[in-house]
């Protein structure tokens, strides 16, 4: 590698990680001032554990993320199978648009339009509506991850099973899905993370009793820099990093095999 590309890498990664490092460092700051270092302290983590509304919001978020990632993994995997294994079918262009549209569509639009529909059909806002909304935008991401893996799979394995008389359902359950397992896990983890992270869509479709963690954090962040938020963020960053590294390790490991 030349020094130019090396510099580009260091500068790029430095830009991406700088703000996150700042956040983590100051979460251990004894002083509540951002630019004043008051010594090392874990007091903000203690304050976090005593913050009941924050903890209950975190619990709501975990429940939503679990259900949404489960549903999105099922739907996203089926979508990827249809797109990668079914060639041409009627409505393929529409199907593709429906699967990948939510990935790029601005969040305010998804949130507002879902809310207008929920009100139109008289569905009470709460945990269920957030789960529906999150499943909708996570499905495309799962389809991307599973689809990439499906493209890399040796199709002759599935064809061999079919030639030997296995029904399509049996081929799926005993050949395709086991081979896809790491991608399913990676897709589910990403869906979980995305759901855990969403503020905008949840703000539109949540009800009075269902405040998620990002909604709670947002209402505090708007009031200014708060070291307790730094602590919460550090925990969140740690959790997500572990999940993402695990996910990319799972995909990379199978990719080499």
């Amino acid at each position: 590698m030349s020094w130019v590309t090396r510099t580009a890498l260091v500068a790029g990664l430095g830009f991406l990680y700088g703000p996150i490092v700042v956040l983590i460092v100051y979460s251990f700051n004894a002083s509540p001032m951002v630019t004043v270092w008051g010594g090392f302290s874990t007091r903000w983590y203690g304050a976090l554990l005593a913050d009941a509304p924050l903890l209950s919001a975190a619990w709501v978020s975990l429940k939503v993320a679990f259900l949404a990632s489960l549903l999105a993994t099922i739907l996203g995997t089926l979508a990827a199978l249809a797109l990668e294994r079914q060639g041409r079918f009627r409505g393929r262009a529409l199907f593709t648009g429906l699967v990948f549209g939510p990935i790029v569509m601005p969040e305010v639009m998804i949130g507002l339009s879902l809310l207008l529909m929920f009100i139109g059909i008289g569905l009470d806002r709460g945990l269920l509506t957030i789960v529906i909304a999150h499943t909708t935008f996570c499905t495309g991401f799962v389809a991307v991850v599973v689809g990439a893996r499906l493209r890399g799979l040796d199709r002759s394995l599935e064809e061999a099973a079919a030639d030997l008389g296995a029904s399509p359902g049996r081929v799926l359950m005993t050949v395709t899905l086991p081979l896809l397992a790491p991608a399913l896990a990676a897709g589910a983890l990403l869906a979980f993370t995305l759901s855990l992270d969403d503020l905008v869509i949840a703000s539109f479709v949540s009800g009075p009793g269902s405040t998620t963690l990002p909604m709670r954090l947002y209402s505090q962040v708007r009031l200014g820099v708060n070291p307790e938020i730094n602590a919460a963020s550090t925990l969140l960053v740690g959790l997500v990093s572990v999940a993402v590294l695990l996910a990319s390790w799972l995909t990379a490991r199978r990719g080499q095999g």
Partner: protein
Amino acid sequence: MRAAGAEAGPARVRKRGRLFDRLVRLPPFLWLAAFFLLPFVITLKISLSEPATAIPPYLPLLDWRGGLDGWSAFLEALNFDNYLTLAADPLYRDAALGSLTYAGVASLILVALGTPLAYALARAPARWQPLLVALVIVPFWTSFLIRIYAWIAILKPEGLLNLALRRLGLIDAPLTILNTDAAVIVGLVYAYLPFMVLPLYAVMNRLDPTLREAAADLGASPSRVFWTVTVPLSLPGIAAGAGLCFIPMVGEFVIPDLLGGSETLMLGRVLWSEFFSNRDWPLAAAVAVLILAIVIGPVVLFRDSLRAGEGEAP
């Protein structure tokens, strides 16, 4: 003439296969039609409702069982007042222009920053590439809200950037960066950089290395190889990355709200305040349709590259 008996077996298998294929694609199709497509149709309809009737069932309702009369009654009752408001009030025009400008400028900066970074990733030793790609992805999946919030501590007048500049003796008085256009651009570039780099890296990684080698053998300098071989061949990736960033940035809410000033006008923020503060739901729906109208072009244009580029994410 085909012998009916000989074909019965394979035909039954094929038929069963087609039924199975339908069963596979039906659940995601129904789900997304119900919770992605239908809501947009409803939004479109509500944007044509009267503000005063902003409570369900949002007049006018289409009486499609009434045949032609039902349709004409529906069309006559359509109300374009919300769109006239959008056209007449400079606030919405400025917000649309603002969204296009912020997203456009940020996309250009993303191309300038993302291209060398993607190139460096593609040229890194093969065994380091999975780790380096994962390092680009981790912030992407790290709380968006928190990453934007972190910039407040850096950019504010008594923040780390001003502190560093003063320590270095470059400035005497703190610069005002937070709550300006510059802060919004920094936030957009920062949040969407992985969106730019990953599809571009996927394209650059697949380029045939012999083309670069041939250019170098013919005496081209490394920078000339980069500009005359690598960049032109990567243009589809550059376009896909810019499109992938531009589309969601147009409707961005969190970044202008946390880092921008009171005069930072973007459509996502306007929609949010029409909905949550002014409670004018039909007008908010009209703003949503305006956003859709702006992003639909890039979405159609980049439909294929969105798929191909995103396919390289973890």
